[in-house]
């Protein structure tokens, strides 16, 4: 018997029979909602995942008739106020009451599904911040004078440095207004123009910027961020941990890291009982006008 077990072990070893086996697909609840400081409470999406070989759509995977709440929490995580939600479309829930998201506060998403499962997630809304410098109304594309935004610092509950995303959102999208690089991507390389309506940087640490004596930081908007001429909103966003974890791991999933191709890792979700994002951020927006440079106008 002893020899038999040795032989079996050896056979397993030599045949390369792995105990490390592929998992079976399992369905999860998916939540999605983003609180923005000083905005109204956001909608909440509730759905399920889909098997990779099956067709996926939100409508098909939406979860209806759930009990959805967003709760404002005290510092000790007890509930200070509850905002009940009701379903408007399949799987989309809206707040029944009007309330403004408060920066530097904890919020919790609490969902009870029709089958009695509970999905929860908590976020801390980053500290609000604002632009302190005067921006010009008009900038000439690729001129020496770049858009500079000086903001007050944002803060976070853990005392960590702020994580920013800078976006340039076009106000009136028009393919005739695409800047040369993006025009090439859209016209010649057949990318969807919609991908560039909101043109965002990756996550940028506060540590990238030198703070002045007031603790303010100054961002220079790179010309690469400008996808369209004419009116654009330059938005600085300080994101919470949930958005940070989601975005950085989703970015790894789509490639561009030192991981080998095909070595895919799950996204980091800070959700109990399901997956998804219940995130928050504080933002500051400046509207600017981008003029065509003379040489391009003449083309």
């Amino acid at each position, binding site marked *: 018997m002893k020899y038999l077990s040795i032989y079996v072990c050896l056979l397993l070893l030599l045949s390369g029979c792995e105990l490390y086996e592929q998992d079976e697909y399992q369905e999860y609840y998916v939540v*999605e909602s983003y609180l923005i400081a000083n905005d109204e409470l956001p909608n909440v999406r509730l759905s399920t995942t889909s098997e990779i070989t099956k067709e996926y759509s939100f409508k098909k995977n939406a979860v209806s008739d759930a009990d959805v709440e967003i709760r404002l929490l005290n510092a000790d995580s007890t509930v200070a106020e509850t905002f009940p939600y009701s379903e408007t479309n399949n799987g989309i829930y809206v707040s029944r009451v009007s309330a403004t998201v408060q920066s530097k506060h904890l919020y919790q998403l609490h969902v009870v599904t029709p089958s009695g499962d509970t999905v929860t997630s908590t976020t801390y809304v980053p500290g609000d911040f604002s632009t302190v410098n005067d921006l010009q109304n008009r900038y000439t594309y690729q001129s020496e004078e770049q858009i500079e935004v000086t903001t007050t610092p944002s803060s976070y509950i853990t005392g960590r440095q702020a994580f920013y995303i800078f976006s340039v959102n076009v106000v009136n999208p028009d393919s005739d207004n695409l800047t040369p690089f993006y025009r090439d991507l859209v016209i010649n390389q057949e990318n969807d123009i919609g991908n560039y309506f909101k043109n965002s940087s990756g996550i940028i640490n506060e540590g990238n910027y030198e703070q002045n004596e007031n603790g303010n930081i100054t961002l220079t908007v790179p010309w*690469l961020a400008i996808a369209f001429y004419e009116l654009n909103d330059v938005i600085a966003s300080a994101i919470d941990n949930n958005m940070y974890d989601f975005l950085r791991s989703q970015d790894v999933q789509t490639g561009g890291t030192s991981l080998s191709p095909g070595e895919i890792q799950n996204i980091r979700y800070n959700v109990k009982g399901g997956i*998804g994002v219940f995130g928050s951020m504080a933002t500051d927006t400046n509207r600017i006008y981008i003029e065509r440079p003379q040489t391009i106008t003449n083309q």
Partner: protein
Amino acid sequence: MKYLAALVLAISLLPLSASSQQSASINGYISNAESGETLISANVDILDSRKGTSSNTSGYFALTNIEPGTHTIVATYIGFERFKQEITLEPGEKRRLDIELKPEGYQLDEVVVESQREKEDQRNIGMAQVKTEMIKKIPTAFQADVFRSLQLLPGVKAASDFSSGLYIRGGSPDQTLILLDRTTVYNPSHFFGFFSTFNPDAVKDVRLYKGGYPAKYGGRLGSVLTIYNKDGNRNEFAGSATIGMLASRVSIEGPIKNGSYMLAFRRSTLEPILAILQESNENIPESFYFWDLNGKINYDANQNNKLSLAFYSGVDDLKFPFAEDASVNLNYGNQTLSANWTHIFSENIFSNFTLTGSRYFNFPSFDIASTPFERNNNIYDFSLKGDIEYLPNNKHEISSGFWIGNLTLKLRDEFDGQETFSSRIQSQYGSLYLQDKWSISDKWSITPGLRLATFSEGNYVRLEPRLSMEYRPSNRVRLQAAYGRYNQFLTLVSNEAFTGFDVWLTTDEGVPPAYGNQYVIGAKTIPWEGYGFDVELYYRSMKNLFEPDPFLPDRAGLPYAETFRFGKGYAYGAELFFERQIGDLTGFIGYNFSVTRRKFPDFNEPVLVNGPARFYPPKYDRIHDLNVVLEYDISRRWSSTLVFNYATGQAFTQPLGRTTAFDFPTSSSNLDQLLVGRVNASRLPPYHRLDIGVSRKGTFFGIGEAEWQFQLINAYSRRNIWFYNYDLDKNPAQREDIQLLPLLPTISYTLDF
């Protein structure tokens, strides 16, 4: 430093008094009679006794404690005529005997008689050697390559057809110390990883310590690759020119007074192909080239002092306007310089001192819509090393040495004209080793060794014991075992698909060195004359593997230690190697069974939070790997080669489910998400490929010997898979095969003059 030198000297000189005054000794260099090149691991025996040894990496040998009288000295080396000379030694005589061996072209059968002893060193535990002739003959895509040849050995794997990186016994490429003429090379790649930097025309000796390597080496967890360039022909001017599809090369060598020189140049010749492609395709680089230059000068000051200066310089350069108003430029390469002094203190004390300099650089830059990104990455490594070999008697071969150096890593990033990252790490490193190969009896030998390694960045001091043993129950069987402790103070940030942006980082406070143990047992046998059959089993642990956290999008403002993740791993396996060295048909079959696992915190966790991290196989893990390499001499003019590889498909992660974020505030497109189970729990289809080559030798208008080489890479056009890409724009998601090399014919012409 003062103490270091004193210690080495003390260790070296301590046993001097013990040497016998009455016995005689023989010492000298063994070299190629035609070119004057010293021969590494050539065998020297005294016929009527059991005394024998092999030449070291400088071609030097010493036989001590020989009874006075008349003896027959025999020296052998594969491919060379047997040297035999009768000598009479007086009591106390120290005979200097420099031996020249004559190359012997086609009489392999005769040579093989001595192969048992000749291959002693090459068949030490964990060690493999690749002949430069084999590197040139083996079919490889576009260009003969040292690393591609090494990848055919059991235990050595490639990440893909596009990568020449060495994955040895479960280790990643940064776990192999690569030394060119005793100098560390940090990025040994051309063409973004497709080829290694080593020009086969310049290379004299390639040996790989796959594991359990001796105390002489350190600084890497896994293995050591030593490459020695040719010294140059000491007797006459000679040269070689090769025209290939991707690159062409030329080399010259010849004598100088009391010495020799060698120069070898190689450059890519892609310009005509790029020009043709640019006419029909848009996304083609504006320019791409690489070149490298190897050189060496040797000077023999006298019989006991040899000096040499060796250098290498290589560059890859790319200019690629990949869209309107957008371009990428990349310039990267290596430079090495080593000055070597070989000194024979006495007939039984041999020394070698080397001053080395190594630089690796890469300067990638992007300019997109007038937004520049520039990186300036430089590594400078200057060191001094010394190795002393002492043979007090025929039972002991004591070696000791030191290696001290200064390593500077400078990395600076600029985005849109503003500095976004800047670091300058300067670290002093040092090591001492002592090793004794003790031949206890004719059957037993044991080699204990100890290495002390220090690294100033973080103030780390590590002791590394090493031990190897050998038992010879018969002349045809060697049973071996080895153990070693290894530390690594550096880590490499790279990508298997592209090596042009490689960055090295070091330990520091809070970032301790990676370490691991290796255990190897093996049997080297000679089942029949002219054949070899070797088996090795290994297990190795890897602890505290530190690497930059791939999930950190930006490291600014974070303490150095927080930018890393720390993991562990292990690997075990069995390697079989069967070789035939006689007759018209020669070659080998190598088989490797292996298992490699890694584990990092927060990686490979179950999808719901708070699950434990699990071990996973890295992508390059292959359970079974079989290589067949055959060479057949059809006639004196024609020969053919065949290489077949079969391997278990690489590990990959099978997506199980999907979902999408529809409202992400900073994105105008939906963010698709994959759900996976265990990382890399699935396998790609098995990899197999057949490469064949035919070569014809001739003469070129009486100028010299010439050779045509015709090769078919992937002869039956197996479409092996590199990885799967999942297109989530399709609904349901569609899997796309990203394939490796198709059928690829190559041709080259070489002229030796």
